[in-house]
């Protein structure tokens, strides 16, 4: 009979210990594939054994030992079968090899994270590998999250593991000189996971995938625990929690996107807002120049600080976007700045800045949605209608399409103003 207490323990231990067990076994055996399988087997054994005997006093240690034994069994089995190659490569070089020079922090999970997010892997492989090895999601769960066949996702992960092994992607925290760029690579992976959850693509998926946003936040919390002094890690966590705080207010009961200015601010998650604001203040207090994620978090802090959308300090938002544009002079940043300018200086000023971005952003749904909204506010209905049409075509998110469609259909009929 299912014991709800035990299920809870198993879920918690899976959440807390999966990455550590994979990382420890991978370190010991120098092989991610072996580590992944052994860890999965150890958790499967735990389900049976703990149900019969109750959980051990130290579940993490029990799982690490069990996974280590499973891995050793497999290596022995394979080395008997393929003695020469296996033993030469794995046992002598990896287990008994000289100690790797270690980076600033010594946690196996951090090495695992840097290996999974290695720049030599394709971005989609980095995302899949990070969710599998660090997040402990099953291949089926990751496949579902990214709307691909399970076999496709399994191949993607297998190929990535094979490349890590064959090309010898090192198992270590990067040198201090390479660390900022490599941390940025890890954060990019986690931000993409979050964004896929926050603005899910695909016509028949939920518009917001709380499983993905929640997992991304959990993994950024882990990165923060491992690299507590990195400002961008704190910035990304703040950005994610301030965004997540608005999740339930962002989609209406009828499945339509609710824009920031119309959201029920009472429905925001107060604890997450408070946490995000505290994180932003923590970074401000350091007096160090903020990076991209810290600036995005600060912008979100300004928005979530206003009790009513009309109280938003738009000049502060524009000033933060100015700072961001200096770090990241991309047209998407310029578009978001123009939206804030429209609130501060009026829609005609904002529209002029938006129009200047037409060439680089022609295929970007948010460009057309922004343009449509500004044209609507200026009473230029025919142009607004065409822009809404284009935005609807380009949007892959069901809630956003519903919102844009309603907005388009509410425009005065052709000929009217």
């Amino acid at each position, binding site marked *: 009979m299912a014991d709800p207490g035990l299920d809870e323990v198993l879920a918690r231990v899976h959440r807390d210990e999966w990455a550590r067990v994979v990382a420890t076994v991978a370190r010991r055996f120098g092989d991610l594939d072996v580590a992944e399988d052994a860890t999965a087997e150890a958790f499967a054994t735990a389900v049976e054994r703990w149900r019969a005997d109750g959980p051990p006093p130290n579940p993490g240690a029990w799982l690490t030992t069990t996974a280590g034994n499973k891995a050793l069994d497999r290596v022995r089995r394979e080395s008997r079968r393929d003695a020469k190659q296996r033993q030469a490569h794995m046992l002598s070089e990896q287990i008994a090899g000289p100690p790797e020079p270690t980076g600033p922090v010594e946690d196996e999970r951090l090495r695992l994270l840097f290996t999974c997010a*290695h*720049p*030599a892997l394709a971005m989609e492989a980095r995302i899949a590998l990070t969710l599998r090895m660090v997040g402990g999601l099953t291949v089926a769960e990751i496949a579902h999250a990214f709307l691909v066949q399970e076999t496709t996702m399994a191949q993607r992960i297998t190929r990535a593991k094979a490349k890590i092994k*064959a*090309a*010898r*992607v*090192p198992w270590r925290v*990067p040198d201090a000189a*390479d660390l900022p760029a490599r941390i940025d690579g890890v954060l990019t992976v986690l931000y993409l996971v979050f964004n896929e959850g926050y603005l899910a693509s695909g016509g028949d998926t939920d518009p917001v995938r709380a499983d993905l946003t929640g997992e991304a936040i959990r993994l950024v919390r882990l990165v923060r625990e491992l690299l507590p002094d990195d400002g961008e890690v704190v910035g990304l966590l703040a950005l994610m929690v301030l965004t997540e705080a608005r999740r339930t207010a962002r989609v209406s009961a009828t499945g339509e996107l609710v824009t920031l200015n119309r959201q029920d601010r009472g429905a925001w998650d107060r604890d997450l807002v408070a946490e995000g604001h505290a994180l932003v203040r923590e970074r401000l207090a350091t007096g160090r120049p903020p990076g991209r994620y810290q600036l995005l978090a600060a912008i979100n802090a300004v928005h979530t600080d206003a009790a009513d959308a009309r109280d938003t300090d738009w000049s502060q938002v524009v000033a933060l976007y100015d700072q961001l544009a200096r770090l990241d002079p991309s047209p998407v940043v310029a578009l978001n700045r123009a939206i804030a300018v429209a609130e501060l200086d009026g829609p005609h000023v904002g529209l002029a800045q938006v129009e200047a971005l037409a060439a680089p952003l022609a295929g970007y749904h948010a460009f057309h949605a922004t343009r449509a909204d500004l044209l609507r506010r200026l009473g230029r209905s025919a142009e607004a209608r065409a822009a809404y049409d284009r935005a609807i075509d380009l949007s892959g998110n069901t809630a956003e399409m519903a919102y844009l469609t309603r907005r388009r259909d509410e425009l005065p009929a052709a000929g009217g103003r």
Partner: protein
Amino acid sequence: MHYLFTVIGDTDNPADDSAPGAIDAFNDRLKSEGRWVFGGGLTSPDHATVTDSRGDQPVFSDGPFVESKEYLAGFWVVEADDLDVALALSADASRACHRKIEVRPFDGIA
């Protein structure tokens, strides 16, 4: 561990754009750091001959084995402890020869 650095040439721009002496300086560095195995630049793919001895008699034919916009312009074989070391070297190699570089591990070396 040995890695092959393939120097990727581009038929749209076959000229050698490398700064004078840059490749020699990179080679000297590989040698002094004990990473040099072998390397060199190749003449144009127009000068290639393909040999096929899979049948009874060897057949020789003119031209590169594959027609494409990109071609093998040269290569290095380097000794590196792991991919991060190899990638750092390849970044300098690409700068030295002013071309793209493909990095691939050897599956063994004679």
